[in-house]
């Protein structure tokens, strides 16, 4: 079974801090994704990566950056955390090439991030 592991289930940080969310997948998937989920807004794509060192902006990249130095690991960085970044963050991985892959995405259990 595919396993996508997010480093923290719950995280509390302060405004202005630099925040790192880590995600690791164990199935050698090419694609990795970061989403945030907010009530009434569904899943919104922040960034995705289709290969090592490759990254593409999603729908809401402002205030975020990403890093993919190894195939199995995809990090989301909040450069200077703000209260409007309080959310549930979900990492996912899949086979195929980028957003046009018809392969199902496998999700981690999410990180509930609170910015105070």
């Amino acid at each position, binding site marked *: 079974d595919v396993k996508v592991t997010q480093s923290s289930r719950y995280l509390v940080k302060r405004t202005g801090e630099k925040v790192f969310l880590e995600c690791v997948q164990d199935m050698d998937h090419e694609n990795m994704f970061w989403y945030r989920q907010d009530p*009434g807004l569904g899943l919104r794509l922040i960034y995705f990566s289709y290969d090592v060192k490759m990254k593409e902006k999603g729908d809401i990249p402002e205030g975020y950056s990403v890093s993919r130095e190894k195939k199995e690991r995809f990090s989301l960085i909040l450069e200077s955390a703000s209260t409007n970044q309080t959310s549930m963050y*979900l990492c996912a991985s899949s086979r195929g090439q980028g957003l046009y892959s*018809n392969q199902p995405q*496998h999700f981690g*259990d999410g990180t509930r991030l609170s910015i105070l």
Partner: protein
Amino acid sequence: DQQVKQNSPSLSVQEGRISILNCDYTNSMFDYFLWYKKYPAEGPTFLISISSIKDKNEDGRFTVFLNKSAKHLSLHIVPSQPGDSAVYFCALVGGADGLTFGKGTHLIIQP
């Protein structure tokens, strides 16, 4: 403007009856359609999918229907069980954005 709409934020169905979840879209370039299920405090899990060359795909209690002329996708669950209570997202592949998720429908199965 939303390309993908799940017009019912929530749906309540009695145990044993059929649950029908709907997803409408505007872009005829979508060519692959998936449904995901999400429990609270867990990530979404893949449920079932369908290609645009088909109009029906079945997997046990779950059936997905695609009506391309109406640009309408539906998921039927029969019979509904308490463990089906969750949020269901449709996800569409194709078009300019590549991948688009609906906002989700919260299905509640009443005993």
